């Protein structure tokens, strides 16, 4: 009876555990999670949780019934600190050592922080339930909010803070939010979404310092200006949690490198979710930090791990080859993006108008590379399906 350890019990870890059981693993299953709380879903943290419409119980990823079905040993509040590929032992933060024939790496990513600035009480990042609770507390008092970074998290925090009645400013290094990811036409739409809701953007600058003693008072900008703020939220991307794998033989390069079957460079060790930099069928490497990938990738990881443990060739199994998909809720608008467009791909309106709801496609050399929609789920769904067909064979 073999032991499989799942390291990290966010969405990808929970789904990996569920997939392992569903696919017939009847040995020992150990779920190791650094956070002391039961697994929960992250997208609502920057939306309903900040607004106070969801509590912790509304975002649980498991319930009594699903945990009973999973029949796992849970080590919550416990970190994996090392893995030895020869003895196949995981070292845990409480000093325990755990022998596992199979390991699923699902340690996700953590929020990137500003470097070289003092640590002040009212400066936040947002990745965990703890983070969301502390930020929500700070937003329960009146005050000016500065959001550093105009990406998805920054935009969602800005719109939640605005809905809570705060004066909000976004500081963005590029000239427009998500310019490098989505190109200038789409970035212009997003900028307008902010300004239409009374959230100005300070663009083309970076943060050089934070002013304040215990709590922040102002943000110093690279153009010499100082932006007054009582609360600062830093949303400048995420860093994959791979440090614990140093010396394990698992190859790393901005994430855990895997092949199309989620296999790492160590046999019997697979990875899934935000932490995994996987090779697509076309040879491209993608590390997708979106919910749908963390939901779906673990099924492939589980299948290929179980095949390996049975001594079979996982390559006979279907590979992981999804069409990337992300949504974001900003103000009252719902954004959806599928594919991986380059910023300089041509953006062409399919229906609606950039001033309100629309669907648009990105094209490169005539071929569709992505679909972008605001408040047009039906048309988006149709085009995403079309793209799914061609994406798989690219």
């Amino acid at each position, binding site marked *: 009876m073999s032991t499989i350890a799942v390291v990290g019990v966010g969405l990808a870890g929970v*789904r990996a555990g569920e997939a392992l059981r569903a696919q017939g693993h009847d040995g020992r299953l150990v779920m190791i999670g650094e956070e002391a709380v039961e697994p929960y*879903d992250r997208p609502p943290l920057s939306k309903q949780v900040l607004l106070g419409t969801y509590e912790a119980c509304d975002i649980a990823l498991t319930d009594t019934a699903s945990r009973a079905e999973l029949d796992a040993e849970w080590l919550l509040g416990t970190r994996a600190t090392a893995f030895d590929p020869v003895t196949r032992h995981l070292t845990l933060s409480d000093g325990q050592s755990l022998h596992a024939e199979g390991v699923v790496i699902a340690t996700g990513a953590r929020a990137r922080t500003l470097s070289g600035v003092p640590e002040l009480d009212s400066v936040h990042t947002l990745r965990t339930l703890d983070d969301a609770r502390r930020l929500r507390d700070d937003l329960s008092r009146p005050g000016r909010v500065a959001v550093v970074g105009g990406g998805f998290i920054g935009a969602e925090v800005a719109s939640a803070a605005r809905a809570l009645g705060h004066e909000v400013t976004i500081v963005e290094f590029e000239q427009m939010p998500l310019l490098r990811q989505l190109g200038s036409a789409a970035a212009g739409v997003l900028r307008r979404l902010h300004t239409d809701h009374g959230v100005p953007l300070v663009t083309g600058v970076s943060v050089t310092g934070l002013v304040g003693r215990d709590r922040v008072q102002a943000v110093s900008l690279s153009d010499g200006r100082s932006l007054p703020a009582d609360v600062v939220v830093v949303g400048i991307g995420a860093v994959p949690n791979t440090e614990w794998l140093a010396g394990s033989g698992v190859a790393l390069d901005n994430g855990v490198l895997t092949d199309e079957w989620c296999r790492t460079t160590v046999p019997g060790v697979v990875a899934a979710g935000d932490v995994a930099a996987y090779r697509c069928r076309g040879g491209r490497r993608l590390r997708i930090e979106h*919910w749908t990938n963390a939901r779906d990738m673990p099924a492939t990881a589980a299948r290929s791990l179980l095949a390996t443990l049975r001594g079979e060739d996982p390559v006979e199994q279907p590979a992981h080859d999804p069409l990337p998909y992300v949504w974001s809720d900003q103000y009252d608008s719902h954004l959806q993006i599928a594919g991986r467009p380059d910023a300089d791909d041509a953006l062409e309106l399919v229906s609606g108008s950039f001033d309100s709801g629309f669907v648009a496609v990105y094209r490169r050399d005539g071929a569709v590379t992505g679909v972008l929609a605001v408040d047009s789920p*039906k048309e988006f*769904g149709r085009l995403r399906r079309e793209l799914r067909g061609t994406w798989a064979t690219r």
Partner: protein
Amino acid sequence: MIQLCSVEELTPGTVTRIARPDLPAPLALVKVGDRVFCIDDTCSHETASLSDGWLDGHEVECPLHESRFDVRTGRPDCPPARRSIRTHAVRLVDGIVYVEESSVAAEEPAR
């Protein structure tokens, strides 16, 4: 019994939304073969209209986050949705689709 529409108004392969002031909640109708199924139109996860979604056999896919609901049972196949949506028994009389009033009466949305 509440009269909804005529069977002829339902196109196979699509989900038809029926939202009216006399209905406590928007409904979605699906015709598969000779049978008509009625479910709540609003996804149990977040406010998305399932009639904007994709229909594949007996399954409707939520247009926002891709959970699929079986129109016969209301059960979702995968997260983010975890709760079933309500299904309502349909009566067909002379080509007209009816549902039971008590079945569609609004209930407190369980979170």
